């Protein structure tokens, strides 16, 4: 059974949902506080699947995920690099996605950098176009050509909530979007109910290229703003009382658990 490490930083708050999702997906999740990793009480490399869940790590005080990214880079850099190089799955959701981007692990185009070396950040997640925090349900299309191991073979659209104020994916240079597409690193895009690219509010934050989630070149690290862990049971669907169902986020976790064996 895949051991899943759900990493809890100060201010993380969607760790329990992520744990529940991983358990439903057949994994053996454990919520581990960052301090436990740093103190050596737990070893990242004992786990098969790493989840960085949503929340407001360190209050998002200096920009969403900024301090968490620093902690990952400065204090866990080496273990994390090995974990990723091994091809083990890493899933960053919302604040976890922000941290992965700001730590340079996504989109991870320029390979790996040595600990302490400051690389140019290629993209960021910044304030929503609407300048507001927004909580709403969105449709996500798994991009057919993506190398992402989490979304490969997903049958249809995902239907999951977003809940963030800083989810607007902005590349440093516009050609980056094309490059990500070419390399199959765009894993999930915001679409309307019919699966077509659409504007606000289907794309809730104004992300370039309607990007909701991207992966690293190897496809084993996925970051996404929406919350697949909040739609793992039929009663979480906003219209289950209308008889609607489907679009569960659970398969994302099943993929992670299976890849982490």
């Amino acid at each position, binding site marked *: 059974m895949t051991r899943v490490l759900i990493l809890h930083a*100060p*201010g993380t*708050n*969607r760790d*329990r*949902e992520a*744990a*529940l999702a991983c*358990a*439903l997906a057949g994994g053996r999740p454990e*919520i581990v*506080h960052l*301090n*436990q990793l740093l103190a050596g009480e737990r070893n990242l490399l004992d786990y098969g699947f790493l989840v960085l869940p*949503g929340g*407001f790590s*360190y*209050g*998002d*005080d*200096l*920009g969403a995920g*900024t*301090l968490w990214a*620093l902690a990952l880079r*400065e*204090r866990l850099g080496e273990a994390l690099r090995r974990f990723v190089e091994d091809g083990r799955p890493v899933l960053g959701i919302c604040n976890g996605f922000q941290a992965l981007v*700001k730590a340079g692990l996504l989109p991870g185009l320029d390979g790996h950098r040595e600990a302490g070396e*400051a690389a*140019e*950040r290629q*993209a*960021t997640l*910044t*304030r929503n*176009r*609407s*300048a*507001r*925090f*927004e*909580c*709403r*349900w969105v449709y996500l299309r798994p991009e057919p050509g993506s190398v992402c191991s989490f979304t490969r073979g997903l049958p249809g659209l995902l239907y999951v909530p977003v*809940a963030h104020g800083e989810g607007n994916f*902005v*590349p*440093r240079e516009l050609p980056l979007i094309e490059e990500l597409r070419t390399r199959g690193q765009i894993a999930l895009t915001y679409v309307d109910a019919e699966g077509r690219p659409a504007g606000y509010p289907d794309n809730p934050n104004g992300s370039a290229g309607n990007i909701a989630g991207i992966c690293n070149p190897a496809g084993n690290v996925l970051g996404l703003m929406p*919350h697949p862990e*909040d739609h*793992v*049971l039929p*009663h*979480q669907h*906003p*219209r*289950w*009382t*209308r*008889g609607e169902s489907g679009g569960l986020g659970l398969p994302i976790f099943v993929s992670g658990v299976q890849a982490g064996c």
Partner: protein
Amino acid sequence: MRYRVIVGSAPGQTDPRGAGLCAEIATLGIEGASEVQTFDLYFLEGNVDDDAVEYLARELLADPVVQRYRWERLNGAPREEPLEAGTWAVEVCLLPGVTDAVAESLLAGARLLGVEGLTWAATGQRYLLRGRLGEREVHRIARSLLCNEIIQQYRLGPIMPARTAVRRDGPWVERVPLRGASPEELARLSRERVLSLDGAEMAAIQRYFATAGRDPTDVELETLAQTWSEHCVHKTFKALVDYEEYEGDRLVRQERIDGLLRSFIRAATERIAAPWVRSAFVDNAGIIDLDDNLEVSFKVETHNHPSALEPFGGANTGVGGVVRDIIGVSARPIANTDVLCFGPTDLPFAALPPGVLHPRRVYSGVVAGIEDYGNKMGIPTVNGAILFHPGYTANPLVYCGCLGIAPKGRHRRQARPGDRVVVIGGRTGRDGLHGATFSSAELTHETGTVAGGAVQIGNPITEKLVLEAVLEARDCDLYTAITDCGAGGLSSAVGEMGREIGATVQLEQVPLKYQGLRPWEIWLSEAQERMVLAVPPEHVEELLEVCRRWDVEATVIGTFRSDRRLVVRYGSEVVADLDMEFLHEGLPRRELRAVWRREVPADPGRLPAADPGELLLRLLADPDIASKEPVVRRYDHEVQGATVVKPLVGQRNDGPGDATVLLPLAALWPEGAARAPSGGGQPALALGCGLAPRFGMRDPYAMAWAAIDEAIRNVVAVGADPARIALLDNFCWGNPQRPEQMGALVQAARACYDAALAYGTPFISGKDSLNNEYGDGAGGRIAIPPTLLISSLGLLPDVRLAVTMDVKECGDALYIVGLTRRELGESYLHRYLKAEGGRVPQPSPEGPALARALHTTMRRGLVRACHDLSEGGLAVAAAEMALAGEAGLHLDLRQVPREDDADEDLVVLFAESNARYLVEVRPEDEPAFVEAMAGLPCARIGQVECIPHLVVTGLGGREVLNLPVRSLRRAWKGEAKA
């Protein structure tokens, strides 16, 4: 060395904050602003050099993709920089002593990056305003939008935050000469020290110290004032009340009431004696059973005065405070609620009373404060209401609620002698002094300048960590009692925990944000995010270890005693030594006079002719009724994954749900996983609320009944079992020393008793906020409308029974449940017809039987949609069901069960009678539904139509209303016509 770092948007990047501000400036009536640019300021001090600052700016302070930074070394004040013509610079920073969470994170981040030399950091904002603006306008923009001088300061130009709070003059510990004071001197003392104590109370304190043969210290006097504050002991609700009720000049009722709480609110709970109520009016929150293993706690608080002065901070700490109440019953918070009452947002600036913030600013600040705290703590904000009335302009109401869940039997509530007093969480500063007594005073035009210390900013992340540490300590059985530091700070928390045994506290042990606090300030500080635990000596080490793991500061500050004395020391100096019995029972009971004059409503006669369709569109667009989606979406209502009926429901996820239904699973991790796979079959919780302040001015009894009826209808409509509903009462009132205000309070409390008994719904918790009045200094007074919020917590036996209000399928039948009466007093119909008088909705005796019968039909799956009729009556409810379900409705008013005098189309459409629901039933289920409702007012009044129009046949058999659902939606959502 001291540095200043400036971070702004990179060229070509948008500045959403700036764009938002630019639009806000226009709403001030200032036309000239063409652009606003925003920057973040960081001030750094310590043993750091240019390289370190450059490194911090690049790695920590600026996002290299969308931002640019520059920094400067400061020698003395920051230098002015030349600005282009037509550009103004405004800089804002916090006042000394106000929590600066970002600065704390900055210091932590610098340490992560290996920059060790920083000793101090502060943050600020810089705004560049462009356009045709004069200096006076810029000051007005700064004061109205950029800076709240209660917690911040600004300059037109570079600003420099002061490094530490200024030490005030005066003695370290003051002896207050009380023994020889005359009644006038006592009154002056109470006023000058913001003690909010009356003559009898001051005299009781005087007698106590006369017997003791000494004068009190300032610490003792403040401790008594906080413990005896209205906020902490509810003097008004416990007072003996001499009540007189008049009809015209005739006295029709006279009685002596032995306390409103005892006689009405608690009495109802005791009479009902529901076996599933575990704790009512005893703990920090009311507690009920969820099932055999779990209990649910619920508490609603108000934070009105702080929110009036500093809307963001006031609402922010209001949420933080009520969440701590839930932590204080050893539970995990699973939902927040908020109900807000504001002045009209279109109030002209000229009509604003002096010293009062504009309602629009209060509104946006309060919503942002709630959003910040709830979202960051990861607690879904799932239920609430927003109402507008001119009476709330100077006294906005901010009700914050929190729901928690815990395994049964784990909450410990009895400290033992010898247990250590441990304070955990945030540090203590000079913030929030006099909060408890301040909240009992009325606001005036100059409150803001006097009471600045009573307003604070919260730090939700600290509270999240405290929560996790407390729950781990609970599961390891490390404490014997716990309470939060709320109003009155440590004095109140330790005083309450040690009530039966006594305690010694060493104030010099309390961790401080900065030095220089006098003993009474440490003892009374209402600094946020602190809890006090009673920890047996053998568990102290383990508790400290748990806290360390969660990055929570924990400090032993004293020991519980066995002699019922409260001894407070600073070092070896005894600064307070009080008898717990006097502290808690020495308060003389208040005696209040209450007078109520029954009104005989003027009969407005027949209604003027008006187009029902046009009226409906206007009602749908009324700020009270219109969609609150823009606010609801700013609150995370999905976090924790438990929200199975969401605040917004229907085909487009935008219809107004009656109540939220929660199925907490993740909150129970790891046990929750075992509950998940079956999905259904489990009990779920429904959260609703009711309030009807419009009726309160005329008939507080009817107002209270209507609030209770609505709160119950809300949860019944989504499937809650009427036999399993608990209520919370939150009274917001004017000055109870005025007999007519007190009379209204008696009326409302009596209705609480009567309605609770009629419905069999016990009260489990309540709070009151009195003196919500404003004095303008020139003799003018504004009191709020008497406002009672009733929050309801219902239980669905099985989550699969949940029902939403959106109609589901054309061809289904529509039934109205309940009786429509000619009750138009203070209705929205009257508002728009500019009509006055008429009866306000009275108690519907058939309400409880209707709720029970309706629930039986829900249990059998006969109900596809259900919506309660409230503001705007049948017409608004039908419109909402149609737009949420994106289907048409055809209603025939001739079929509506009504009293004889409800004989006009407008009455049937818009009366706001209690105890009514609109229900959708499949044709094949109609016989069973009708049979179950037999003998009750219930009738088929129409059906769901495929053609998306709301069509109404009037009493005369003609079509009186025909509107496309699209138009209803546009009106309700405030969307411009395409």
